[in-house]
């Protein structure tokens, strides 16, 4: 197991976890996979394109953030 950080909160995951696995893990019941269709993932302050999520192998101490669209003017 390794520890990564999701929005600065520690999260223990298997060592071979990729970014897509992480995002599935942190999805709440309300946030279905469909809801992740329009989010952007940022790892260590770098945007990881959606096409790369399955290929991004998480490293210990990675800081993972997820951004979504919200209402705004």
């Amino acid at each position, binding site marked *: 197991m390794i520890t990564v950080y*999701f*929005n600065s*909160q520690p999260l223990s995951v298997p060592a071979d976890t990729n970014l897509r696995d992480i995002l599935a893990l*942190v999805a*709440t019941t*309300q*946030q279905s996979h*469909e*809801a992740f*269709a*329009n*989010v*952007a993932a*940022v790892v260590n*302050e770098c*945007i990881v*394109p*959606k096409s790369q999520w399955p290929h991004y192998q998480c490293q210990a101490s990675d800081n993972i*953030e*997820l*951004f*979504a*669209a*919200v*209402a*705004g*003017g």
Partner: protein
Amino acid sequence: MLKIADHTFNSRLFCGTGKFANSQTMLDALHASGSELVTLAMKRIDRHSHTDNLMLPLQKTGIKLLPNTSGARTAKEALFAAELGREMFATNWVKLEIHPDPKYLLPDPIETLIAAEALVKKGFVVLPYVHADPVLCRRLEALGCAAVMPLASPIGSNQGLVTKAFLQIIIEQSTVPVVIDAGIGCPSDATAAMELGADAVLVNTAIASSRSPQQMAQCFKQAVETGRMAYEAGLGQVYQYAQHTSPLTGFLRENQEHQGGLNAL
């Protein structure tokens, strides 16, 4: 038809999506507005909090979505936000807004100029939110911004066209579309902005915070159309003194001298 970059719009009313009581109210209002471009912000998702997915219902409407960089306090942060928006919305359009001051939310012109230059170089279609500064708008236009979005008054203030005299100069000088953004408080403000010759207006608070957003959105739709029609029809000149609309000579007697008062009776 309004054209910004490679996109044409039938509607000259752009809308924001903030402050609506719920998603359905927002969708109903957007539908009533006839708007073809709406803005959205971006936010970090917290793990256990439920975040409404705004994108899915909005995407179904076919309305073009414009991510903004709200929350950015510097050019560097705005660049990051723009990249996020490109990834999230699959668009290279961005409403560039950098307002570090939380009290008046006035845009930082220096950071905005720096960010605009970098974003244009990266291939973004940049629509910068700026103060009604004609010099800054010309600089942004020269950098390659697709439009300029000068403010009418502070965001969400409903104060109307406080900057009118400067908006006029911007409209006169600009060769890119001018979208009057922020502070438009009522439909007549939108009409006035369009009568000035603005290419479009962006309205959010005035619609979202009204008692009936759907009805207010329809009012704004009509107001913008009326203002544009009036502009195209050509408004009359403003004079300091009265200009008669009926003949003033030859009434009763030719060359009669004015005699007023009781003696004239």
